[in-house]
Structure formats: C-alpha cells, structure tokens
C-alpha cells in the first residue's frame, strides 16, 4: 500500500456549553472517527472543549477572497440596516 498523506480534516471545538464551535486547526486521519480522536488528543489536552466537530477539508465550500469586494459589496450601501441610521428625538427612552 502506498503511503500518501492521510486525508485532512478541519477541527471545530465548543469551548463550553452556550458557545458555538470554533475552528481551531486541522488533523490528518484515515477517517472521520479517527479524526475526532486525533483532534481530542491534539486540541483538548487541557479540557479546552466539551464537543468536537471534524469536517473533511475537501468538503468545505468557501467564498473566494478574489471576489471579496463584489461578493460583499451589496451590503455596503444599505446603511438603513443599522439602528443608528434613524433620527429619533433624544428624549425618548428605551429606543
């Protein structure tokens, strides 16, 4: 059997209940089950997490940095989405 690099998995850890999983890095593993175990040994040696997700790196679809401007531009001119856009009397409370 040829010895190539094992598949790459991206690792996400939930630090504690109530928080989202956050990307922490990657591990190589033959399959997802082993990836979870490897991630446990690598990224939570000091109880840094209560839950781990692994995702095959090849399965991640991401926006392209090349089209960053055109991709995110549509939000640029919609400043009325922010609460500070609106003029309201200063003496109205809880608004």
């Amino acid at each position, binding site marked *: *059997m040829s*010895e*190539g*690099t*094992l598949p*790459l998995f991206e690792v996400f850890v939930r630090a504690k209940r109530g928080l989202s999983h956050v990307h*922490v*890095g*990657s*591990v*190589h*593993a*033959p*399959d997802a089950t*082993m990836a979870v175990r490897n991630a446990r*040994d*690598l990224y939570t*040696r*000091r109880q840094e997490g209560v839950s781990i997700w692994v995702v095959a790196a090849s399965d991640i679809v*991401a926006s*392209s*940095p*090349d089209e960053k401007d055109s991709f995110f531009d549509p939000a640029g001119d919609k400043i009325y989405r922010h609460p500070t856009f609106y003029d309201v009397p200063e003496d109205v409370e809880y608004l």
Partner: protein
Amino acid sequence: MYGNDFAEPDDPGAGPLNAADGGAVEAAAAHVDTKAQQGLETFDAIIAADQRIEPRDAMPEEYRQTLIRQIAQHAHSEIIGMQPEGNWITRAPSLRRKAILIAKVQDEAGHGLYLYSAAETLGIDREELLDRLHTGKQKYSSIFNYPTLTWADCGAIGWLVDGAAIMNQVPLCRCSYGPYARAMIRTCKEESFHQRQGFELLWELMRGTPEQQAMAQDATNRWWWPALAMFGPRDTGEHAVTGGHTEQSMAWGIKRFSNDDLRQKFVDMTVPQAQRLGVKIPDPDLKWNAERGHYDFGEIDWDEFWRVIKGDGACNSARIERRVTSHQQGAWVREAAAAYAAKQRQRAGAGAQAGAADGEGSAA
C-alpha cells in the same frame, strides 16, 4: 519549543533571503497580470495596516516560501525536541516527574502538529515536509543536537531552552500570517508549564545534596550558551551577520524583534532567576550595565554554532536516524488505519447499493 528562522549563509536550499538579490522578483514580474498585481496591492495594504494575512489571500511568493521554511523548521524543532527529554522518561526519579515529563513530551508533539497544520495552509503537503526533514533539506533548531547527560538537563531544558523559546514565540503570536499566529497563541499557553516545571526541577535539586546541586550547576553550564545561540546570529550593530532574514521578515510583519533584542531580553529575564535558584551563569563577562539598563554578556562561540547547524553537533545524526526509524516503524499503524477506513467506505458503499435495490433509500 522554538521559533527562529535563520539559514547558513552558504545554504543553497535557503534561497535568496531578500527577493531583490535573486532576480526572482524580476522574473515573476514579467508574468504578473493585472489581477495578481491588485492582489499584491491588497497584501501590502493589509501588512501596512498590521492586519493578518489568511491562507487564500494573494501573497508574494517569497512571503509564502519564507513562511513555509520558517514554520516547517519550527515544526521540525518541536518534534525533534521530543527526543532529548524523551531520553529520560524511563529514568525519571519519581512517578510525579515521569507523568510531568510524558505530558511535556506529548505537548512538544502537539506543538509540532499545530505548526504542520499551519504550514499546510500555505499549500504544502505534510508528507513533503517530513520528507524534507528526513533528508536534511530542512533544518531544526541546533539546540536539540546537544545531549541530555543527566536528569538535571531536563530541568535546564525547561528553564533555559523553553524560556528562550517563549521569548521567541510570544512576538510570533502577532505574526502577520494568521494561522501561524494562532498556532503560536496555542503553543505559548502551554509553554509556561514547560518552563516552570524545569525551574521547579532545578529548584528541588538546588535544595538537595551537594551532588544534586553540582548536577544542576553542571546542566546550567552546558545549556546556557546553546540557549543564547537559539536566538540566531547577531543581526544588529557592527557585528551583524549580513544576509540574514531579519530585515525582510520584519518588513513583512513575520518577525517583530531582532535576534539581538530578544537575546538581551532573555538574559535580563534569566539572570535574576539564576540568582534566586542559586546557580552561577557560566559567563565571566556577565554584569549589570546601569547606563544601558541591561546586563552585558560575553560573546557566543559562533564557530561552534555554525558547526552544529551544519551537522557536526554531538547528536545530529542520532536525532535524524531516530526520527526516520520511528517514522518507518509507525508505517504499519498508518497503513492499517487507512486499510480499515477503505474497507468501511467499501462496505458503506455496498450497503447503500443493496439498500437502493431493496427499495429502502436513505429515508430509512
């Protein structure tokens, strides 16, 4: 454990340190299209704003190659760094010390893996990096080519070598390349334990028998100068070694302080610790300079430094041989795991087909 980047001045594998020296920029410029040019303008703007470059951003090829070389050398240092202390696991003097040492050596493996993971975001394969280590195409820190002769060496490594590594690595937490900076934050959180356990180990020896005190002093004598050399060649003032990476790496926000500045900080931090510990630092020129507000210290034996980097240290060949052997001896584990995963995939595929034929889709 370690995060400096320097190469032998005559190492052809290192490539030109300043892109302008090698003609690489001119060569590349001929092929640069407008879009790539815009990408590099974005790169320059991000660097100028002291923000972070992320893996899929456009970046100069020299920036990418510099980072691959530095992160790989750093990763290699971590995993080779398992060996000097691993040497003492079976002979640690108590169960407590054995458990601590195992945890520390495991941390070094972990730091290596954080760093390989960061290097891979630059588009290089893990196996390729290991191959470059095994064939000597990439280096690791010369500090690990010194032997651990006594138990006190484990203390001196934690206190001095990891202490120097922290000095190097803390500024790298603000490195311009995001994945490297994040790997360093994770690493630095763990290094503190390494340094403190080493200090504590020596602290206990210094309060022990005269033989134990002598052992601690002997380890300090042997590790002090190699620890100072870890910061790399002189890169400031009249003695600066020309052709170093410092200037370009600082312009790119990879490096934040010169080798000499970091070395001075390390000396200033460590001398009071040595006094408290009761060991003598083996440098007759070491003295407080009130005018500078720093300790003056003697000159490192740079001939020895380059000799060890070039392969003539006490343990160079043993370290690589051990590394290659353990990689080869672990091959069956990787192969078995891959074979098992392939079989599981095959069964899952066969099961899905059978299920579809029975009219039981994934809805079941």
